[in-house]
């Protein structure tokens, strides 16, 4: 069943389409929320709330728009509202050595399958994840959407509700910050 079919079925009230959509996006949506709030318990909650919001607002969704962008925009609003209430400081620019980020990276590393040849790669991956976690939220989300979600720039602009130029700027600055962070913490080592 294609995405468009599922979405139009959902608009007509088909609950199987809802299950299909939840399954289709489960990892991607969860990953994005996790990148934003950096806490699996909060991400769980926001995951639930996002899908409830989808059920409530699906009739207002314009089928000509990109569903991915719409879904991630909903998720982002909920996450930002949540952060504004619970951790307003995290919406400002925190220093790169954020303790929050380190806990997250450890959790991510623990969730990797323990393949022997994957260990080295896992270690490198966890260092990268750690540094990404330490970035300010505006850079984290752009990097996640671009590299993990592989979203088009126009769609990222929709999700962020920002002009395309801002997206590119954040992307560039985010990559710069990330590289600085990696090189200062693990100088001279391979981090990918």
């Amino acid at each position: 069943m294609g995405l468009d079919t599922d979405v139009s079925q959902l608009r007509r009230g088909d609950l199987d389409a809802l299950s299909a959509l939840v399954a289709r996006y489960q990892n991607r949506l969860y990953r994005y929320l996790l990148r934003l709030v950096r806490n699996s318990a909060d991400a769980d909650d926001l995951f639930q709330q996002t899908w409830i919001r989808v059920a409530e607002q699906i009739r207002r969704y314009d089928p000509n728009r990109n569903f991915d962008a719409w879904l991630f925009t909903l998720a982002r609003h909920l996450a930002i509202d949540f952060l504004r209430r619970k951790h307003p400081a995290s919406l400002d620019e925190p220093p790169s050595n954020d303790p929050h980020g380190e806990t997250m990276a450890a959790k991510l590393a623990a969730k990797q399958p323990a393949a022997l040849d994957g260990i080295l790669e896992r270690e490198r991956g966890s260092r990268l994840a750690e540094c990404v976690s330490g970035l300010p939220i505006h850079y984290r989300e752009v990097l996640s959407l671009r590299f993990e979600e592989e979203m088009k720039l126009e769609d990222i602009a929709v999700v962020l509700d920002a002009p395309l130029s801002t997206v590119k700027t954040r992307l560039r600055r985010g990559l710069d910050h990330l590289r600085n962070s990696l090189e200062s913490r693990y100088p001279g080592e391979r981090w990918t």
Partner: protein
Amino acid sequence: MSACDEIRDLLSLAAADALEPDEDERVSRHVHDCPACAAELDNWQLLARGLRRLPTPQPAAGVVERARARAELAFGEVAEQRWNRNVLAFLIAFAWTLTVLSWPIVRILSGGLASWFTTRLTPTWYAFAGLTALGWVAGGIAAMVLAWHQRRERRLA
């Protein structure tokens, strides 16, 4: 080497495939001739690949299922609300239709059929207006009494 400086600014975006086609061309042409910038581009692309390959965190087992269940409930509620709103709209239209329709009926029953296109203020008209007003007032009073009753019941529950 200002060309290199310019290109260097674009290299990170190049690794993110975020350049305009003309910028992309400039970069590829420069990188073809400049080994320093080519090496830089390589570094950025390595970083980009690392980002693309970050492990995907998975939600815990129950989370997805619970989200789906809650969303289903919300869906049902939305549908229920829409239905209720449509029913109420229909009923209000129906009530108005009855109010308007009862006028000619009353006229017929009171025998003044031929003159029902004129708007003389006959006693029949007053009777009809009075009856309708009584109906709506009675409805209003009943609404208040019932709402008060309901509030009492819910407070005790």
